[in-house]
């Protein structure tokens, strides 16, 4: 028995911050101090607070260290491991109070871990560790004690809904899959995680792969599938490796293959990788991609549960949906349904990012307010700036404002406000963000990712983008907003798949909540947040300018002239607004002013070609 367990977070955040180097340093120093046999080093998946990385925990005490560097390792080994004195300097402090263990840290206090239960606590490459936490008990119980219908009923009673974005009741989907009789059925785990700004599924696959596989096995048994596919995006090489490794280990001991646990249930799965197309996250497109074709969606019905992969009944479930299953079977449907509010049960994993203090991976009960999520768990806004908006649901979702902060997070409440649960990406924005520009960013994404099959999405989104382009470059005109709303609503109604049906949301929701910002862009030719370069100008404050000429020398288009006496002036018509002058000015004499300069304003008038 080892005296100490040292859990080093090797999630993607901490690895990039250097956790592997730290691990090697530990091994080196432990060997030098003859401690190697007393300390058990475990590389875990993401512990959550990526912003504090590299992080680690030391058991039995459960001491939590943050922002550890290679140079700190020696102190931890000699002080903590040898003398039993934890290093306070590396612990989290909050209001000058030391928070020695995880439980005391505010980041963790409002969190409830279900899907992420093991993530950050076990070695994701060790099946034994997974088993030691109760792994494979759920599938064992299901196979030995429950009929398929009973298995489905448990999920129905739990109220679990799809975590991939749509929120479709999982039990109902399984029921369809079960009811459709066929010689062969399939289960697919959707790990395409296309929402830019989300990494929940990645962390689950990397941090607790066995759990996702066990969830898939339960789903497969329930619907009667003997074959499964993991569709994982190519950008996640470690997730692919871990799932493959886990499946190999399971095959060796007979947890995958014929007659699992001596039952009549036989099952195996394989990994297919995505090739960089957002639309492949849509279930029918995903199926076509596995079939080796262009990943274009097809109309539903027929739903995959009726006719899916190779025309056989197929159930597609998201990674997080599957990761909830083992807990539901181990602890019961009532336990799961006791968390959350209304029709949104259980917990949800979110990837908190943007201008929030504690970026990272969090899991909270459904029904928590946005305020608690952003200000309690997330610790508030960075650099003392003001909260402006929060974006949920990625390119399909919308932005919410200060006024909505007390909204409980449920599938319904978010939809009602013009956003959506989506897969769980939460991007917090401070007052330096231009909402028109953010909406344009998402629209650009959807235009590029549109598969091109149906014309409302292919052409309509381009049309909307053109208008947004005009607005942000100073060519916006009266009526543009109304046109965006009209187009947006038409595209939502007429598109073939979820991509087009939701792609106008970012624009529509920002118009709904930040209309005055659109007006400023269109009517005043001004970007109040000073983001859209066409709608700002640079000006040198002559009272501050010391005439050093640095700006003039660094200007790439030579549009700054002057001399020591007269000081320097920017010639607005030639200025490309690169910001070099501002960067180099030693006395901060360069001001960025919202609004076009009057000289440029008269030079830009909408031409026929630019009007849509």
């Amino acid at each position, binding site marked *: 028995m080892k005296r100490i367990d040292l859990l080093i977070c090797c999630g*993607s*955040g901490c*690895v*990039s*911050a250097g956790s592997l180097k730290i691990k090697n340093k530990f091994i080196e120093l432990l060997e030098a101090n003859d401690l190697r046999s007393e300390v058990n080093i475990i590389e875990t998946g993401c512990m959550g607070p*990526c*912003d504090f*990385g590299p992080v680690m925990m030391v058991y039995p005490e459960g001491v939590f260290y943050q922002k550890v560097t290679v140079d700190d390792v020696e102190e931890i080994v000699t002080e903590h491991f040898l003398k039993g004195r934890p290093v306070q300097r590396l612990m989290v402090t909050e209001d000058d109070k030391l928070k020695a263990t995880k439980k005391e840290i505010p980041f963790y206090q409002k969190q409830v871990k279900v899907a992420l239960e093991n993530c950050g606590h076990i070695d994701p490459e060790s099946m034994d560790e997974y088993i030691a936490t109760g792994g494979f008990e759920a599938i064992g119980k299901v196979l030995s004690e429950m009929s398929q219908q009973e298995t489905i009923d448990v999920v129905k009673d739990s109220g679990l809904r799809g975590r991939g974005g749509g929120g479709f009741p999982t039990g109902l989907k399984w029921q369809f899959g079960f009811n459709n009789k066929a010689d062969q059925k399939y289960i697919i785990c959707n790990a395409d*995680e*296309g*929402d*830019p*700004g*989300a*990494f929940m599924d*990645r*962390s689950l696959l990397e941090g607790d792969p066995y759990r996702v596989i066990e969830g898939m096995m339960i789903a497969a048994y329930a619907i009667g599938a003997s074959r499964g596919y993991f569709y994982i995006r*190519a*950008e*996640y*090489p470690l997730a692919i490796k871990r799932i493959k490794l886990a499946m190999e280990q399971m095959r060796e001991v007979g947890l995958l293959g014929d007659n699992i646990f001596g039952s009549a249930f036989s099952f195996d799965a*394989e990994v*297919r*990788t*995505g*090739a*960089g*197309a*957002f639309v492949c996250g849509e279930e029918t497109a995903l199926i076509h*991609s*596995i*079939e*080796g*074709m*262009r*990943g*274009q969606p097809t109309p539903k019905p027929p739903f995959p549960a009726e006719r899916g992969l*190779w025309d056989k009944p197929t159930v597609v479930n998201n990674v997080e949906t599957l990761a909830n299953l083992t807990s539901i079977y181990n602890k019961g449907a009532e336990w799961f349904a006791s968390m959350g509010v209304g029709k949104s049960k259980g917990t949800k994993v979110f*990837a*908190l*990012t*943007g*201008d929030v203090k504690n*970026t*990272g*991976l969090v899991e909270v009960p459904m029904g928590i307010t946005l305020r608690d999520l952003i200000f309690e768990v997330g610790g508030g806004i960075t650099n003392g700036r003001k909260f402006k908006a929060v*974006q949920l649901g*990625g390119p399909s979702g919308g932005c919410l404002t200060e006024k909505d902060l007390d909204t409980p997070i449920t599938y319904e409440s978010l939809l009602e406000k013009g956003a959506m649960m989506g897969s769980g*990406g939460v*991007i917090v*924005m401070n007052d330096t*963000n231009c909402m028109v520009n*953010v909406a344009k*960013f*998402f629209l650009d*994404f959807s235009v590029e990712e549109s*598969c091109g099959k149906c014309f409302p999405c292919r052409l309509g989104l381009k049309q909307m983008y053109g208008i947004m382009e005009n607005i942000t470059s100073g060519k916006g005109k009266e009526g543009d907003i109304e046109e965006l709303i009209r187009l947006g609503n038409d595209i939502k109604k007429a598109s073939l798949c979820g991509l087009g049906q939701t792609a106008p949301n970012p624009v529509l929701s920002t118009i709904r909540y930040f209309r005055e910002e659109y007006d400023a862009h269109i009517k005043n030719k001004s970007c109040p947040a000073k983001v859209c370069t066409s709608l700002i100008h640079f000006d040198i404050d002559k009272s501050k300018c010391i005439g050093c000429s640095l700006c003039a020398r660094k200007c790439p288009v030579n549009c700054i002239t002057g001399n020591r006496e007269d000081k320097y002036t920017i010639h607005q018509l030639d200025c490309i607004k690169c910001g070099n002058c501002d960067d180099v000015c030693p006395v901060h004499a360069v001001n960025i002013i919202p609004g076009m300069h009057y000289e440029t304003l008269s030079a830009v008038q909408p031409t026929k070609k630019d009007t849509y």
Partner: protein
Amino acid sequence: MSQIANYDNQMYKELKEIISEKKKIRNPLIEVLREAQAIFGYLPIEVQQFISSELDVPLNKIYGVVTFYNFFSMKPRGKYVINVCTGTACYVKGAPRIIQMISEELGIEMGETTKDGQFTLSAVRCVGACSLAPVFVIGEETYGRIETKAQVVDILNQYH
């Protein structure tokens, strides 16, 4: 180019072996294309023709798949592909600035390859390291919290 046109080449032998292995799985086209791109660095039409005859799949279908997915390229790419994340988290934290810095440093625009064939500048949507935003990726190495040009230059120098 001559290497690509010569089907006796070692690279094609390697590909042929992979194809016979992958034929065991159902509809292996995308998996085969991925392996082929790993061998050749890109997927010129000659390689697609070869795969077409080996897998007995029409060339037009292969071309359709290659052009559909962002992952596949029909143009040669540099030894190192710099993938700058332009996902949402990175975008709000300044991805456009990073692109500008790299572009200035290497003298290439987005999508281009340096003359010496070392680097290609490319964009990806979210690599799942959003808490480190802004981020770029070279090979399997992720570089996060990039703020200054000096940081960028330091990193690129490691690849010369």
